């Protein structure tokens, strides 16, 4: 019944609450090559992103910080989904997710968004889109700050 409730919820899908409860890649990553922090000024949520790029591939990503379920679940999904992608692929993936989540009636995304599809419900809650995007903007910021050469 609990699972049903979550499944019925247009926003708080089970997979989101699962990532929120038990993020697989949370905590600082001492040997990162890229880092940035993101702030949502309206709620004060703060995300840190630790990225280890090697050989032009995102080897590891971890996040840390405090935030709402949407924000942290999205961050956790990021850490899972960007692992192993080349920097270029990661950037494209980020853009695809952003494009998909910020339009009212999205086309199917050109890339497979995987678990992120569960976040589609935020479209009904426009202010929460920022929450879903915070980690991804932070990712972009981290790469921009210290561009991969």
């Amino acid at each position, binding site marked *: 019944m*609990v699972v049903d*409730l*979550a499944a019925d*919820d247009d*926003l*708080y899908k089970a997979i989101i*609450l699962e990532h*929120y*409860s*038990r993020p697989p890649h949370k905590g600082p990553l001492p040997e990162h090559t890229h880092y940035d922090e993101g702030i949502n000024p*309206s*709620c*004060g*949520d*703060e995300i840190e992103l630790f990225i280890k790029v090697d050989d032009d591939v995102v080897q590891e990503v971890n996040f840390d910080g*405090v*935030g*709402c*379920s*949407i*924000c942290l679940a999205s961050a956790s999904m990021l850490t899972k989904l960007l692992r192993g992608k080349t920097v270029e692929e990661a950037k494209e993936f980020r853009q695809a997710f952003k494009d998909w989540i910020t339009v009212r009636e999205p086309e199917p995304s050109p890339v497979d968004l995987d678990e992120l599809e569960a976040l589609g419900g935020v479209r009904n*809650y426009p202010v*929460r889109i920022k*929450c879903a995007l915070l980690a991804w903007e932070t990712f972009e910021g981290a790469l921009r700050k210290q561009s991969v050469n």
Partner: protein
Amino acid sequence: MTLSETRLIDKPTIKKDFPFLDGTIFLDSAATSQMPVPVCESMSEHYRLGASNVHRGVYDWSVRATDKFECTRRKVAAFIGAQDERECIFTGGTTDALNLLAQTWGETNITAHDTVVVTSMEHHSNLLPWTQLAERKGANLIWWEVTDEGELDLDQLPEILAAQPKLVALTWVSNVLGTINPVEKLIPQLKEHGATVVLDGAQAVPHMPCDVTKLGADFLAFSAHKMLGPTGIGVLWGRAELLEEMPPCRFGGSMILSVRRDRVRWAEIPHKFEGGTPNISGVHGLGAAIDYLNSIGMDKVRKHEVELVTYAMEQLGQLDGLKVFGPQDPARRSGVISFEFRGIHPHDLATIIGREGVCARAGHHCCQPLMKNLGRQGTTRASFYIYNTREDVDVLVGALKKAGEVFKDVIL
């Protein structure tokens, strides 16, 4: 149960004057209040009868607009207990008022030898103008701390008095904790020690009787949009002696006596501080809002709030895992209730109760230093006003239960 409430605020009138509230449980009046139809109409009237600028035209429309404008100034003065209407300056809002003050009074009075006191429960609007000023001037800055109960730490008062601060920036009512600071006790002591006291009245003036003369404060700021009036208009009240000595800081039309290339003479107060075309319809709206509140009576407004808060504290208290921040005694707090519920993030909580038709606020409420003290990023906040009822509290409690359901399996 709702009997005494009905006696305080007439429900059919509220229903008629706030028709859009039907079906919405609006619990965010601390952010901005709703506007009753008569206030809205009074604003439109300015345009629908023919708009005009004030203080300058010789034709009838201008006379009408100017009369109403200055008449509202008198109304504002009476509403807050000011002795002289010239002491009331129209601004864009509380934030605008406090910045204006920092730019004129602050710039000319605060030096590197002075001490400035801010409390850690200040809204950014009564915090940053002063911390930035202190930084710019190299002045000494003291933070007046808040106790675990969410009240100003009175044990720190001797230290503060000993520092002989030039300025104390103090909110009358906290927009997060609901705490009503004991300003009538604090102000005389602070002033005896030479302080100029700036009261942030944004959350107080709309909710309780106000008498600045009795309080003995030096400055008071508040916004119309939190007291049934429109956005874009607020008031800075200051004692005439202080205002007269302050240089103007917004230069333009209407604030001059004469302008020559080699010499500019400023107008008298309050006009000296009101450069440019003012928010005329906004002033009219503020006047109508004051009329509306006066027609209820500020005593009743306050009583209604105490009743509601009492009921809300009782009901919320019965929810497992719910913690209300700030004073627990309803008599010591306003209609602002910040709470935490089972560790659910305020954003999530506000979203879920929002789906049940409850408008509440989540976040730091422009009080990040206070959040730091509370050890939180933010809180969920419900705030009441004249149109709220016990039923609204019941809906809130029901909505919170639903949120509990959604997050029941979440480990935090």
